[in-house]
């Protein structure tokens, strides 16, 4: 989230999510919030009581989206990239049941980067460039690497001095055992109940666990513990569930001689597109996400990600989108020689696609036209720039509408059904815009309210205000409409909104923040 909204970086931020039993809980908290004592997993009301926080809704799909796109790009380091596979319960220390780690199989890869330390350093650099903070470890088994990354490097108690750079560590083959012994038993990826049981037995560290007789553990604490034990030591092999659907959706070409010639590069990409489209077509599948990687001599590879609105197996369409991006990228990067190119479909869906909900447009021709347009727009302008709007039941105007990218995801038409059932019809009517009251919400809303100078009598509306250097006299007003965010959403916003008509005839939407009695401009009825 901080990557897309850098303005939030300087504030204490928490993300909330709804827990079935405990109500709203803190799903994640940033460094500033954690310094004030907020911990993930604590009830939101408690967190709000101890610190002044910015609260946002936790969007699980955005996490997964971001992680998946990292996984796509991480293929520049290793051909096998996957997300961690979860158990039924969240592991101790985690509040959410969702993958947080990327696993890379780097067997034999390190030498290409000049050793494991260098490989880690370049991965860390790649993460830092994108303003992510990573914790990386290389070890002989997935279990050890996971334990070191999560428990040795990812320090839950973040000190203010800690740097903003990714941390990494490489474990020599013989060092597995010694380093694991120092880590808590939770680092074995076991259930919280088992951790609690071990704690009652006085076992805190993995080293202490190993002192216990192994034979008795399975019957008392479950076979799973022993499996994890063996996985950590590399006695049992653990597969990486790769993200891409199957290797057949990847086509690759290595050039005998590296070339800088743009025409050749474009032609190579074109040929790969055709090959991929052919494979997709044979299985009646269409691609929703495409990653094209160009390995260049002496510099970092060029990675182009493409999201599509509807699954497609149309070679010409893919070519056009990719070459469009390619030209743009080459003109900015220019001068590097290509030695290998790969095009891969990372998200694939059946071609026959039923989206009756989304499109009630009759003709399929029209639908195809639109998806081409959307693909085109998002390919050139970026995925985040072509959006679909949804109205949410929130009283705070900024949150009453969510925007999501239109491309690169599978859509299921069953949203909000539970929401609907739970809410009363009256509440819904109050929150959602309706044609009965068309002038209630402005057509333009400022991304964040702008403080203005206003003259007002006591609690009444302003009589005059200054916005963007111009002073307006208030001619007429309607309001106040009091909008408050729920107390359970963190520090409450309590605002009295006024619709203001000025003497020159313009209409504005301004509010008084009741906590501070300051005036803000929030929108215009344009």
């Amino acid at each position, binding site marked *: 989230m901080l990557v897309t909204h850098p303005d939030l970086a300087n504030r204490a931020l928490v993300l909330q999510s709804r827990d079935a039993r405990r109500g709203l809980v803190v799903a994640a908290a940033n460094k500033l919030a954690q310094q004030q004592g907020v911990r993930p997993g604590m009830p939101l009301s408690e967190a709000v009581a101890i610190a002044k926080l910015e609260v946002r809704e936790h969007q699980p799909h955005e996490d997964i989206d971001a992680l998946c796109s990292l996984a796509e790009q991480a293929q520049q380091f290793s051909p096998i990239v996957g997300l961690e596979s979860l158990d039924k319960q969240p592991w101790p220390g985690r509040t959410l049941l969702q993958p947080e780690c990327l696993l890379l199989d780097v067997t034999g890869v390190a030498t290409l980067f000049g050793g494991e330390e260098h490989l880690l350093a370049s991965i860390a650099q790649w993460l830092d460039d994108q303003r992510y903070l990573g914790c990386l470890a290389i070890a002989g088994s997935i279990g050890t690497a996971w334990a070191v990354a999560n428990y040795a490097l990812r320090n839950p108690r973040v000190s203010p001095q800690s740097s903003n750079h990714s941390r990494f560590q490489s474990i020599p083959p013989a060092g597995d055992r010694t380093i694991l012994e120092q880590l808590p038993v939770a680092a074995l990826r076991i259930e919280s109940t088992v951790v609690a049981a071990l704690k009652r037995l006085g076992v805190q560290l993995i080293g202490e666990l190993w002192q216990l007789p192994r034979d008795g553990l399975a019957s008392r604490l479950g076979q799973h513990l022993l499996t994890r034990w063996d996985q950590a030591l590399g006695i049992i092999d653990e597969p990486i569930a790769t993200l891409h659907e199957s290797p057949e959706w990847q086509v690759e070409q290595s050039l005998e001689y590296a070339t800088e010639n743009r025409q050749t590069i474009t032609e190579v990409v074109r040929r790969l597109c055709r090959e991929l489209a052919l494979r997709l077509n044979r299985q009646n599948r269409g691609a929703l996400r495409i990653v094209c990687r160009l390995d260049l001599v002496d510099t970092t590879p060029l990675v182009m990600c493409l999201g599509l609105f509807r699954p497609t197996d149309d070679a010409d369409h893919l070519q056009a989108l990719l070459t469009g991006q390619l030209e743009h990228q080459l003109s900015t990067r220019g001068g590097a020689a290509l030695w290998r190119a790969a095009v891969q479909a990372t998200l694939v869906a059946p071609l026959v696609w039923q989206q009756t909900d989304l499109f009630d447009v009759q003709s399929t021709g*029209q639908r195809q036209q639109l998806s081409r347009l959307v693909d085109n727009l998002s390919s050139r302008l970026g995925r985040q720039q072509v959006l679909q709007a949804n109205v949410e039941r929130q009283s705070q105007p900024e949150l009453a509408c969510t925007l999501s990218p239109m491309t690169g995801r599978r859509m299921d038409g069953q949203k909000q059904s539970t929401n609907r059932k739970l809410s009363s019809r009256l509440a819904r009517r109050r929150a959602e815009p309706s044609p009965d*009251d068309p002038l209630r919400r402005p057509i333009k809303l400022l991304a964040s309210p702008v403080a203005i100078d206003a003259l007002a009598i006591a609690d009444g509306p302003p009589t005059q205000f200054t916005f963007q250097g111009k002073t307006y006299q208030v001619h007429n007003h309607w309001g106040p409409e009091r909008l408050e965010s729920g107390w359970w959403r963190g520090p409450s916003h309590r605002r009295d909104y006024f619709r203001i008509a000025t*003497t020159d005839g313009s209409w504005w939407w301004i509010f008084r923040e009741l906590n501070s009695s300051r005036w803000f401009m929030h929108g215009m009825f344009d």
Partner: protein
Amino acid sequence: MDDRQAVFDKLSKQVRHLEISGRTTSEQARPLSSGCQAMDRYLPGGGYQNGTIVEYLRVQPACGANYLALSAAREAMNASLGFLVVVDLAQQFYPPAAVALGIDLQRLVLVRPKSSADALWAIDQSLRCSAVAAVLAEVDQMDDRAARRVQLAAEQGGGLGLLIRGAAARSQPSWAEVQWIVRPLHGESPSQGFAKYPLSAVASRQVHVQLIRARGGRAGANVVIEIDSMRGELREVVRHEQTAAMHLAAQLARPARASNSSRSGEPGTGSAIA
């Protein structure tokens, strides 16, 4: 004198013919409503034509031009069941307002380009797409080449291009089929407003529009439009001085209807004749 008038009429008819010669008859058959009957009345053919550019020039921000354009977009969407693309360079468009106008968000594509060059490109691409019923965009700077490009794109795709521009665009060359200039008006005096609309209901908003360019029609029409705060309709307002007489005449003709309209409209500003 009659001679000169006759020649003038003949010439203007010829000019009009030349102006609309490019149109095919099928396009002429079904004009798109502008969302306001009074405005339609002054448009050649009774509305906007498919595949053309319509410009709303506003004299100041927050004057209601977007509302008029969105109403026209809604009509175009309903007519062809196509999509609406909003190219929002300022990143301020607020979709709930569109919902309140009766626009289906499932058929809305919101594009937020980062530069004005990208915005122009997005407008061009969207207009070229035949699934798009209307494109709504605010364009402040546009040279004649870009304007021509956008117009050709609309012609190709058959959608309606709704551009909101500053009043300065009036002196610039334009390829728009229709240009309106939008000026805000303020309604009644504050004292009435306080008394009559204490909390929830809002007095209707008035906007003055002037037709300054209409290919194949006659420019110069002035209309005062009222945005009904209850139903969102756009209707013409007849000025106060004339209203009294008109109102009386209407009452004599159809008593029940006239009294209805005087109750829903405000007596200070006039009654609706739509």
